[in-house]
């Protein structure tokens, strides 16, 4: 078993969640004792695939081999016994337990824990020395830093005899120093013959630490490479994929005064992790500013700060005569009143409320409008009429304001949200992922509407992970990587290769186009 050359082999693994084809005939082969990266955008199916391997989900079809043995895992115990350990993106730790208690949970040995704890203490001290994984064993996990908690997760896997360790986005929650420390641990593990599968969407990590890399896109495994024989640009292109350009007729932008000026923004996300730093840009009237980047490089955080959901840590935003700073923030309501509309990235969670009727969802954020809110009661007839009129204007089907929001298709939900924000005639529009996961007809319709708003003299900030979308409708493009702006280009001069390099922050420094040149 130990001598097997291939640690993990997946053959045609297929998995559906309802209508979503999360894994589409995925093949993968991981060599023993290597660090194998799996890259792909959020939702590409990486985590699902690994959860199948870990026995958390079962594949619909396909074959899995672990060290050449046929393997069907129906729960995590079987995977653990086969020598697979997993460090989940969100740690699976009992926070008020000590490190020791967390480690033995599920593999206690005897019915009484005192003895098991002592055995574990000796074994963990040995493992800690061997791999440089020192952790205080008698401290409650909630008192440890995130980096330390991750060590506990790794120790858990090793204690249970893992020979293959899967890590799902391990650096997402770490500081750069902690990440470096983690990579050092990877090297130590590799030296001892442990096979590591690293799931990430950060190309830099792939390039610096892995031996092999496999790329997933939209549930499919699209490529396998030896890391030394590939480069970030190629990987970025494989991750994003080339898509058919839609034919959208557009006129030259007539850009006017800047309506939004962001200077030196630093923003922390909800978990208090710094995701955006030193970001400056301006959005002018009559212009679409596209913000490109691989998912998770700070664009989402930036969008939330622009919409008033997250506060600034540093810098300022001048917007329609008001200034937002770390000391003075405007909430989303105040921003709306000012004339800033926000189309959130996640329409299901933030754009609407699935259980609400369409007319109610079409009212969200504007429920205090004078003509609708009459003190205690909402003017329901007007709410309904408004909804009907925007449904007609934006071709939302079916035109039925009483229908539950969740019963509309994705494209129609998105059109309803856009209609809600566009019809209030805002000056600045902040739009996140307007066409994610919707059909081609709706995509075209939505893009045309966005261009119409531009031609009406609005300033539009468009955040999208679809490079093709950014390229087809933006007038200027900013590229973000690791929370920083790695490039700014005019859409007219933009080509996919350059943008891809900027997205991976792999452009030679002399070729970087800076703010000054704008």
């Amino acid at each position, binding site marked *: 078993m130990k001598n097997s050359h291939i640690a993990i082999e997946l053959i045609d693994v297929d998995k559906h969640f309802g209508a979503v084809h999360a894994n589409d005939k995925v093949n993968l082969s991981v060599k023993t004792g290597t660090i194998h990266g799996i890259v792909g955008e959020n939702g590409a199916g990486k985590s699902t695939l690994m959860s199948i391997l870990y026995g958390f989900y079962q594949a619909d079809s396909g074959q899995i081999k672990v060290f050449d043995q046929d393997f069907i895992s129906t*729960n*995590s115990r079987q995977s653990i016994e086969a020598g697979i350990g997993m460090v989940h993106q969100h740690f*699976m730790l*009992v926070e008020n337990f000590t490190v020791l208690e*967390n480690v033995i949970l599920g593999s206690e040995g005897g019915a009484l824990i005192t003895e098991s704890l002592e055995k574990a203490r000796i074994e963990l001290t040995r493992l800690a020395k061997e791999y440089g994984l020192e952790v205080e064993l008698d401290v409650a996990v909630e008192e440890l830093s995130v980096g330390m908690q991750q060590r506990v997760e790794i120790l858990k896997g090793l204690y249970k005899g893992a020979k293959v360790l899967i890590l799902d986005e391990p650096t997402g929650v770490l500081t750069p120093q902690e990440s470096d420390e983690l990579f050092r641990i990877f090297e130590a593990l590799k030296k001892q013959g442990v096979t590591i599968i690293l799931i990430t969407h950060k190309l830099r990590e792939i390039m610096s630490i892995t031996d092999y890399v496999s790329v997933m896109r939209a549930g499919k495994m699209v490529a396998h490479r030896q890391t030394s024989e590939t480069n970030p640009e190629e990987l970025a292109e494989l991750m994003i994929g080339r898509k058919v350009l839609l034919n959208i007729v557009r006129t030259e932008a007539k850009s006017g005064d800047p309506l939004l000026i962001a200077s030196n923004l630093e923003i922390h996300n909800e978990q208090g992790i710094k995701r955006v730093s030193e970001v400056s840009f301006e959005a002018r009237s009559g212009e679409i500013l596209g913000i490109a980047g691989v998912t998770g490089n700070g664009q989402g955080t930036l969008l939330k700060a622009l919409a008033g959901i997250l506060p600034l840590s540093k810098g300022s935003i001048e917007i329609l005569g008001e200034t937002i700073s770390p000391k003075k923030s405007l909430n989303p309501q105040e921003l709306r009143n000012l004339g800033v509309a926000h189309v959130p990235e996640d329409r299901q969670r933030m754009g609407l409320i699935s259980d609400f009727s369409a007319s109610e969802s079409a009212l969200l954020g504007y429920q205090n409008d004078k003509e609708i809110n009459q003190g205690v009661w909402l003017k329901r007839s007007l709410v309904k009429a408004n909804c009907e009129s925007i449904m007609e204007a934006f071709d939302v089907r079916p035109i039925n304001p009483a229908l539950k929001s969740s019963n509309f298709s994705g494209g129609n939900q998105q059109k309803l949200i856009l209609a809600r924000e566009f019809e209030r005639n805002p000056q600045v529009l902040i739009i996140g992922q307007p066409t994610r996961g919707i059909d081609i007809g709706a995509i075209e319709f939505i893009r045309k509407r966005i261009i119409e708003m531009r031609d009406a003299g609005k300033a539009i900030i468009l955040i999208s992970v679809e490079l093709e979308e950014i390229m087809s409708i933006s007038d200027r493009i900013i590229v973000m990587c690791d929370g920083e702006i790695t490039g700014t280009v005019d859409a007219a001069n933009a080509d996919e290769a350059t943008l891809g390099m900027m997205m991976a922050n792999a452009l030679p420094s002399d070729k970087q186009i800076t703010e000054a040149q704008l």
Partner: protein
Amino acid sequence: MNDLLLNLILTLDASFRVCIPLIFASMAGLFAERSGVVDIGLEGKLLMSAFIAASAASVFGSPWIGLIAGMFASCVFAMIHGFASITYKGNQIVSGVAINILASGLTMILTLAWFKKGGITPTLQSDERFLSITLPGVDIIDHIPLIGVIYRELISGHNILVYLAFAIVPLVWWVVYRTRFGLRLRAVGENPKAVDTAGLSVEGLRYKALLIGGILCGIGGAYIAIAHNAQFTKEMTAGQGFIALAALIFGKWHPYKVLAACFLFGFLDALALRLQGVVLPVIGEVPVQLIEAIPYLLTVILLAGFIGKAIPPKASAQPYIKEL
């Protein structure tokens, strides 16, 4: 002076008796809630067990058969709660309330059907009940001042279930904090995902916890009907299941602290009984209802954060749905 002392000892003795069902029920609740299932159905399980225990004891003429039948009935109810809230991921509180209503209605109907009496069972003979046990040596120690009285009135002279209740608390502590099952139980109430990914069955652990709870509640219910009293009467548990829940929160889900809370609440209850109609200087007639309300008031104050903090197991009240 001596009178006051005797009064105090007798009140304490009475509080022992009334806090026994609280101890059993709150320990039952402790297992359930530690596993992540809020057990609002303690009251219903106590009531059902009291009724079945009294019925079985009366029909078969043995308190032991009554006890076992009561435990069985309570377990059946616990499993119904589990089926709804664990297997089918229903709301734990709604299904718990359903348990209470079901018990309340079922006991009425069954007393009518089985005994042709509305809401009561036949009075039990002394050999059909758990009787007080006189501990050895009462006569010898009796003449020692103070200790004699305490031994005679307070320690001796209880039925076997009272002693069982006090023995069970350290046992619960040991199970929860010293055994593999206890470790898993605490883990599943805090972070069921951690338990699932460790290869353990979340549902299995929760069912086990509810089953233990069913057994303990069963003993508590049987105590009320066939040890403390001599028959089942309509709604005889009178909210003790809810007080037990309050004690569980007040004792912060820790066996010994919960025991202390049960005893405090039992003492208040006994005090209220003893002070009924007593006129004190200044205050006038003692407001008994106020004393009886104290457990609830204290719990509310605790929950509001005035006395320390009551942090329930993190996953309690959440059905476990497998997803990443």
